[in-house]
């Protein structure tokens, strides 16, 4: 890929470096859009997927914006780094990768980097009426006393475009969330209703944003692990894994084979229980009460196994830099095997309760279709991406951790 990059973009790149097996290109701000467009459109590169966009405060009055790109076609990743001085605008790449829309808003919100040509550059994570940019190095770790409770409650401002469009119309503007049974306290959607039909919706996020990045800046590598558990409390260990893999890559650590196996095993258990919560709450939101409780029964079993492994039931902090915290007890493996062989029956029951239910089908079929191209452009990942018809599974196509070992092979039901 390095050669491809230099042949196609050679004169436009300030530097191409490779560190820890990761390819990074450095670009001058004025070259950014041209490079980005080429990265996406050039057949030999085909970086169609923007997996992340982050800003870094490099102190000394400069920011670095990092674009993390993925090429599904060539199964490779590349990173663009652009360095700008404070107060200098950077061109927005939202027109090239629509996924950048929210990422750029995040960088604007937390660091104060402005992106020229962004369709709707406004704060995204911090509450209405917030001032300052919390991820800047000079921002106090314990928060700005001026941003007290009163400032955070602020005035509830209606999203301007919706409010303007509907002044005097028959449409009803309705706030759904955050204090709403099906947005679970973490999402607010401003809905524009025409009777029973939603004609416009604007999501407002950030209700559960805790500034983990800022906290992590002041900690040692190991201290950060418990924070990672809390990023998504439905799948704590998987977030752990992402973090420790990054640190291990930086330090060049090889982990023991058994630790890799345990990581895979526990990650996959975590994935099951996380999906159980998703499916259960989805069913509840659609009005089916029982599946949630059946799924919680199975989830409980997994949490019990967690407890056996490392004492805690949710925030395990079990994966460590260099391996795992301790070996698992023998009883855990017996239990896990028993659970997994019995789980297929449970899945059949969920199928009977939901996927074979005519009402559920009518509620879900043909609703909110995202085409494959849209999914890639918007940076959807995981099951969402696969549901759009894209055959892409990181564990299979760009294996990491233990997923690249020969003993990792997903089996279908018939194999058991």
């Amino acid at each position, binding site marked *: 890929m390095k050669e491809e990059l230099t042949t196609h973009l050679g004169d436009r790149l300030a530097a191409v470096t490779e560190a820890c097996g990761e390819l990074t290109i450095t670009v001058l701000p004025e070259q950014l859009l041209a490079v980005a467009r080429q990265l996406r459109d050039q057949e030999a590169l085909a970086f169609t997927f923007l997996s992340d966009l982050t800003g870094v405060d490099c102190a000394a009055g400069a920011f670095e914006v990092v674009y993390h790109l993925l090429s599904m076609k060539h199964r490779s990743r590349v990173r663009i780094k652009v360095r700008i001085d404070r107060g200098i605008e950077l061109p927005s790449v939202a027109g090239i990768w629509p996924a950048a829309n929210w990422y750029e808003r995040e960088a604007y919100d937390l660091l104060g980097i402005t992106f020229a040509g962004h369709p709707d550059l406004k704060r995204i994570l911090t509450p209405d009426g917030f001032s300052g940019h919390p991820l800047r190095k000079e921002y106090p770790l314990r928060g700005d006393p001026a941003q007290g409770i009163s400032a955070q409650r602020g*005035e*509830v401002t*209606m999203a301007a475009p919706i*409010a303007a469009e509907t002044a005097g119309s*028959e449409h*009803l*503007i*309705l*706030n*759904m*969330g*955050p*204090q*709403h049974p099906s*947005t679970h306290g973490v999402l*607010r959607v401003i809905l524009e209703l*025409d*009777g*029973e*039909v939603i*004609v416009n919706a604007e999501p407002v996020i950030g209700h559960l944003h805790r500034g983990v990045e800022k906290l992590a800046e002041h900690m040692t590598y190991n201290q950060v692990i418990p924070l990672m558990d809390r990023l998504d409390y439905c799948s704590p260990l998987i977030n752990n894994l992402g973090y420790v893999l990054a640190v291990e890559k930086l330090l060049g650590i090889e982990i023991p084979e058994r630790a890799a196996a345990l990581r895979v095993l526990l990650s996959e258990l975590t994935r099951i229980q996380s999906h159980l919560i998703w499916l259960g709450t989805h069913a509840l939101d659609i009005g089916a009460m029982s599946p949630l409780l059946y799924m919680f029964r199975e989830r409980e079993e997994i949490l019990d196994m967690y407890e056996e492994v490392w004492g805690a039931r949710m925030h395990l902090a079990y994966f460590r830099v260099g391996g795992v915290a301790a070996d698992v007890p023998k009883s855990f493996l017996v239990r896990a095997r028993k659970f997994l062989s019995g789980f297929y029956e449970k899945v059949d029951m969920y199928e009977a309760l939901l996927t074979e239910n005519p009402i559920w089908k009518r509620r879900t079929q043909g609703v909110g279709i995202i085409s494959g191209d849209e999914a890639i452009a918007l940076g959807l990942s995981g099951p969402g991406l696969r549901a759009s018809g894209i055959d892409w599974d990181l564990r299979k196509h760009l294996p990491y951790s233990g997923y690249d070992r020969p003993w990792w092979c997903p089996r279908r039901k018939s194999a058991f």
Partner: protein
Amino acid sequence: MNEGYIPILFMLALATAFCVVVVILSRLVGKRQDSSEKLMAYECGNIPTGNARQRFPIKFYIIAMLFIVFDIEAMFLYPWAVIYKSLKLFGLIEMVLFVGILLIGFIYIWKKGALEWGSRNI
């Protein structure tokens, strides 16, 4: 007045008395600590935007009107149903004609799209 209805009056009076008494009692007994924020209409923790009593889609009125039309027609079937046994074939023909007329109206509103719930249609 028909004597058979007197017990119904008793029942209505009892139910009314019960409702009034519990509402008043709970008003007296329950603790009250009002604040302007507590008394605000619920809108998921946000300050309500605009007034809830605005115009709402005509669709609901249409359903109400259709209901009145068809429910009255259905009501006509009640006395007919009660004496159907003595009407025999005559009653059947009468009713088929009546239901036929009803159905024509029903097909009309169906075709007009009055039963659709998409956006921006009547």
